[in-house]
């Protein structure tokens, strides 16, 4: 790197003053211009011969100073001390050292430099680089015309700029090696002018340089570079050119022609006057710059608006074209859609017709399907019913097997009875039979086949027995009574009507047993069983009479208890708030039965179940019996039931019931209540146990039919508050609780 011995040649001058070709001439004189030069342009086809980096530095300088290359406002001296300027100086040092540090003689040109010399001179001083300047002038008319063409600058402003660049270049190079060169003169005598420059700046002129000068003069320059045809004095004719400009040009041209010394007092005085003039108008120039800046800004905005308007116009045109295209497409599409819609409407119409036909078919099919479903359901139900029936019949068959055997046994008994009848020689027996035959004949029946065909005969007898016709049943009953007397007289046979043992053993063993078809209980039967069972060691029986408004019947009920043949009985009467004279009747009756231990309690009406429960609370007996105040016992009832229960170890028993009227007399079997009861009783053989029949019908009829052991009562508990069926409900609870061998019916 050259340090201290370096020298720089700076070409100064106004824009469009031929600084580029003259700088190229400096290269011919051996001045290094650098490698990175700005490329040629149409307005400068032989090249600018400007270093690109230094150009950028000058642009940044102007920007920091708030100026442009065409600004006419002065640059005040204090502006050079701005911090940004100082910072840029460091960058400039680096650039110069990087680009030209190795060249002892180098140079550069940029018309902006004429106004920025204070910066560069400071830099050269810092770097220790010796400065030399080439001050280039050109006819101001040529410059103004060129700028008007290239930059649309007003000629007045171009003259002003020419004057500023020329005056500042001269002022800032005073005392330095410098030479003033007129472009037109150089174009006319290039070799001579280059040698003049070399001499004035003390540049070496060796043969190589001479060759370069010749090459420059003959090859580089041509007449095409000479744009102006004006003579130097023409500037005085231009009314737009101030005298200051034309006079300064005249003076500097004389210096360039070596007619005057650049440093002479005349020249210095003239240029000093020009500088004073420029400085004096400085504020106006600044204002002019601002106006121009505003103008340029508006112009740019106008240009932008115009560009945008052009762009928008273009877009509008494109949009219009597009709209036209779209409308055409839409018309085409609409037309096509209209055709498609017409086709679709036609197809829909045909499809509707098809759909209608399909729907009608579907309706018909659905109707047929519903019919088939209904038929299928009927068949399914029928099949299920058949299956169920089959299963039921199978179950029933299993159940009926022992019943068939039972019926066969009953048939055998009847057959035996018939045999006895037919073989009897007793007129008393045959007479009723003949009467019966006559009655049957009177009814139009054929007796012979009936009586001689055993199954038919048995069925006929059963029919007759179940008949409500007294005329038919009377003879049979007579026969029955006679046979009974005869059997008792002849042998102590087991009464066929005592079904208690059969039923109890059924339940105890859990299987059906042969049993008589009919179920009948009579006082005489009870008497037979009960005989000899009552004794001083017999357990206490508590009889509870719940009384309510039965003044007509309650005396009879108490009397029936007092008439029992069992010795150990206590009577508990609970009057449930009777409104009639029941209480006095009860008290009189209990007085009559003074030998019977008794208690009498009254309470407000709470219902039969409450009265019974109160009696049960008071009762002390091992056995508990209930008698409703409108019913009554037969004299040996309690002893008979008790004997059976003790013998069979039963805990609960009830007997058949006779239905009586208000007068206490038995009602005929034709009575509706009685008939229903007998029918239920007759159906008993259909069921495996009496429990099944109890689910269908309250065979006990009334709680007054109960005789139960205290131990069972303690397990079952009291009566529930049902008004009508508290007795039935109690029996159903009994049905579940006791052990199998503890239940019996009588």
């Amino acid at each position, binding site marked *: 790197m050259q340090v201290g011995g370096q020298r720089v040649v700076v070409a100064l001058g106004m824009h469009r003053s031929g600084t580029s070709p003259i700088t190229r001439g400096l290269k011919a004189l051996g001045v290094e211009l650098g490698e990175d030069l700005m490329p040629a342009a149409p307005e400068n086809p032989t090249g600018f011969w400007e270093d690109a980096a230094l150009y950028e530095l000058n642009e940044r300088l102007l920007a920091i100073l708030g100026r442009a290359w065409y600004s006419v406002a002065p640059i005040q001296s204090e502006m050079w001390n701005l911090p940004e300027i100082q910072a840029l100086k460091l960058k400039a040092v680096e650039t110069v050292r990087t680009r030209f540090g190795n060249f002892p003689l180098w140079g550069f040109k940029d018309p902006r430099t004429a106004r920025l010399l204070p910066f560069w001179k400071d830099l050269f001083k810092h770097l220790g680089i010796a400065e030399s300047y080439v001050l280039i002038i050109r006819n101001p008319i040529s410059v103004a015309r060129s700028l008007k063409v290239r930059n649309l600058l007003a000629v007045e402003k171009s003259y002003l700029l020419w004057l500023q660049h020329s005056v500042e270049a001269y002022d800032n190079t005073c005392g330095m090696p410098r030479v003033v060169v007129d472009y037109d003169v150089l174009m006319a005598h290039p070799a001579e002018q280059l040698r003049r420059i070399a001499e004035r700046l003390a540049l070496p002129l060796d043969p190589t340089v001479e060759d370069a000068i010749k090459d420059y003069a003959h090859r580089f320059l041509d007449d095409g570079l000479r744009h102006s045809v004006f003579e130097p004095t023409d500037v005085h004719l231009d009314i737009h050119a101030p005298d200051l400009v034309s006079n300064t040009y005249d003076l500097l041209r004389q210096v360039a022609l070596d007619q005057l010394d650049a440093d002479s007092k005349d020249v210095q005085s003239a240029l000093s006057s020009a500088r004073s003039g420029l400085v004096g108008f400085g504020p106006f120039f600044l204002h002019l710059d601002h106006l121009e800046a505003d103008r340029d800004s508006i112009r740019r905005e106008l240009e932008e608006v115009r560009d945008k308007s052009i762009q928008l116009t273009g877009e509008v045109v494109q949009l219009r074209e597009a709209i036209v295209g779209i409308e055409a497409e839409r018309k085409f599409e609409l037309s096509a859609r209209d055709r498609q819609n017409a086709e679709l409407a036609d197809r829909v119409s045909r499809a509707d017709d098809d759909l209608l036909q399909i729907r009608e078919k579907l309706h018909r099919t659905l109707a047929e399907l519903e019919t088939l479903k209904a038929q299928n359901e009927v068949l399914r139900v029928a099949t299920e019913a058949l299956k169920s029936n089959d299963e039921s019949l199978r179950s029933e068959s299993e159940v009926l097997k022992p019943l068939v055997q039972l019926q066969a046994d009953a048939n055998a008994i009847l057959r035996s009875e018939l045999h006895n009848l037919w073989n009897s020689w007793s007129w008393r027996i045959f007479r009723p039979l003949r009467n019966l035959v006559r009655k049957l004949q009177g009814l139009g029946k054929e007796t012979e086949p009936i009586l001689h065909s055993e199954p038919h005969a048995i069925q006929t007898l059963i029919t007759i027995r179940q008949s409500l016709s007294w005329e038919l049943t009377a003879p049979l009953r007579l026969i029955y009574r006679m046979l009974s007397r005869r059997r008792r007289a002849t042998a102590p046979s087991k009464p066929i009507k005592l079904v208690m043992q059969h039923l109890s053993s059924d339940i105890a063993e859990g299987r059906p047993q042969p049993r008589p078809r009919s179920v009948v209980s009579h006082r005489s039967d009870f008497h037979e069983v009960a005989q000899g069972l009552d004794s001083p060691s017999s357990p206490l029986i508590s009889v509870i009479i719940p009384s309510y408004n039965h003044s007509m019947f309650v005396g009879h009920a108490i009397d029936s208890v007092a008439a029992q043949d069992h010795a150990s009985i206590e009577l508990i009467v609970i009057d449930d708030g009777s409104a009639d004279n029941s209480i006095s009747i009860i008290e009189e009756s209990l007085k009559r039965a003074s030998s019977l231990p008794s208690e009498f309690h009254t309470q407000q009406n709470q219902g039969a179940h409450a009265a019974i429960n109160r009696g049960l609370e008071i009762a002390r007996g091992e056995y508990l019996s209930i008698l409703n105040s409108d*019913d009554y016992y037969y004299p040996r009832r309690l002893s008979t039931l008790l004997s059976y229960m003790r013998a069979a170890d039963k805990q609960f028993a009830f007997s058949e019931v006779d239905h009586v009227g208000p007068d206490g007399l038995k009602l005929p079997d034709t009575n509706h209540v009685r008939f229903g009861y007998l029918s239920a009783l007759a159906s008993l053989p259909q069921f495996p146990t009496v429990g099944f029949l109890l689910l269908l019908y309250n065979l006990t009829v009334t709680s007054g039919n109960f005789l139960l052991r205290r131990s069972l009562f303690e397990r079952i508990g009291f009566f529930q508050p049902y008004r009508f069926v508290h007795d039935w409900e109690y029996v159903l609870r009994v049905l579940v609780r006791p052990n199998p061998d503890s239940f019996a019916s009588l």
Partner: protein
Amino acid sequence: MAYRLHGGNTLAKLEKGCDLEGPQIIAHYFESVTREKASNVLAPTAYNWPRYFDWFVRNYPHDGANRLVHFVPAAMR
């Protein structure tokens, strides 16, 4: 024993009472034997009479009215 029919316990009154309360006690019976096994092994329950009981409740009416199966809890059917 003698059961007296008089103005206070006519057939109509008895039937009406049974119609009101009869279904309740039958339903209660079936519930009780469904809830726990009857200690009476001959009691009419599905457990004691697995085939016959089903046929019985489906074919016999309670007190001449609805068939017993109507009173049997669903779990017992």
